[in-house]
């Protein structure tokens, strides 16, 4: 079956299997920043935004996304520069192996759009579905709070 999805601002017509998951479709199309990890809606590594809301692409039927807008990590920065959240994660030591970072950034972008000035607890609550097995969450939380402050001051 054929679906039309706007991915990172570009409308694409894609041939898919009826039972295909969005994660598979996106990776097949080259969006490899969307990570294949647990496939059980548990880790958040495959997070993307659909119509601005963070969801798990491993458990989203691609057919259900027909006519909607998807944003992957590739849509939040260009090839030559990192986004402010990505830079802050590096500066605060919030990334080690980096596998969870794309999902974390996609979810954080939604958080800061919904709540531009979150408290520490609000960051922790919002990001609790993005598991990190290297860094722990303190430095990541600090990075998000730092970006929130910087964006507020602009």
């Amino acid at each position, binding site marked *: *079956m054929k679906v039309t999805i706007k991915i990172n601002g570009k409308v694409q017509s894609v041939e898919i*299997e*009826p*039972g*295909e*998951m969005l994660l*598979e479709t996106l990776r097949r199309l080259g969006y490899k920043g969307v990570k294949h990890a647990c*496939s*059980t*809606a548990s880790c*958040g590594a495959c*997070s993307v935004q659909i119509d601005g*809301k*963070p*969801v*798990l692409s*491993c*458990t*989203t*039927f691609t*057919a*259900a996304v027909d006519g909607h807008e998807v944003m992957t990590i590739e849509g939040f920065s260009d090839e030559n520069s990192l986004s402010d959240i990505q830079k802050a994660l590096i500066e605060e030591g919030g990334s080690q192996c980096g596998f969870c970072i794309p999902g974390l950034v996609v*979810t954080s972008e*939604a*958080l800061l759009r919904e709540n531009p000035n979150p408290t520490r607890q609000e960051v922790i*609550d*919002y*990001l*609790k*579905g*993005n598991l990190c097995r290297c860094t722990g969450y303190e430095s990541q939380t600090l990075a998000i709070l730092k970006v929130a402050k910087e964006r507020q001051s602009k």
Partner: protein
Amino acid sequence: MLNVKAYLKPDTVQSAYEMGQIPGSLYVSGGLMVAQLKISNVERIVDLKSVGLTHIEDHSDVFKIGANVKISDLISNPYLANLNGDLLKNSIKEIGSTQIRNMATLGGSIAFKLGWSDIITIFMILDSNLEIYDGEFSKISLQEYVKKSPKGVIITEIEVPKSGGIAVFEKFAKSNFDIATLNLGLKVVLDGQIVKDACVVVGSRPMVSQRIKEVEEFLIGKQLNGITKDACDLMERVVQVGSDIRASAEYRKALSRFLLDKALRRV
């Protein structure tokens, strides 16, 4: 990937129901549960989101909530969120993660009648009724629905009565992102310090949520202060729980007392 032959998007509840009656068909709403199924006999997925049902209507005596309303949207209506002492506002954030709440729907969370469902416990405390379609529209209480397990029906709407009282939800899990080892809901209507009416629901037993009538009857007519210990003793004695990978029945019994204690202190 589920090896299905067709992903159908019906326009109406009636056409969705007809599609769902063909052997090998499975309804999907939020999709979280269906996406993880490891079954090979599903040939057609019938997507219920295409029929709409995303309304939250504020009527004089009830809230009417469309079955396809996302869990995250339940707190978008401040009157609904603040009902019975901010029950939904305080409890929805305890369910899953941001991403899961953006995907899971209210109808889908009830339809599977999963034992560990926090949503069933929460909406059972609210004394909710369901509108279902099985060839014709009818109403059934949530309590009856989980008992009867009607097959092949579509939940179209959830009705939450605007009853008085204060309700709280308690959950014990390894982390608040994890499935509950046990969850508990309590609603009391007070006349001064006297309990006029009570509703106590325990879920993730690991069986599906159940009202604990013995504890409700014990609470009614008593002064709230000073009955906690006896109520908790009774709860531990009467609650029907089982063992699974998360906890033994004995552990759950002990938890039930702890959660009721916490809930009684909160109201």
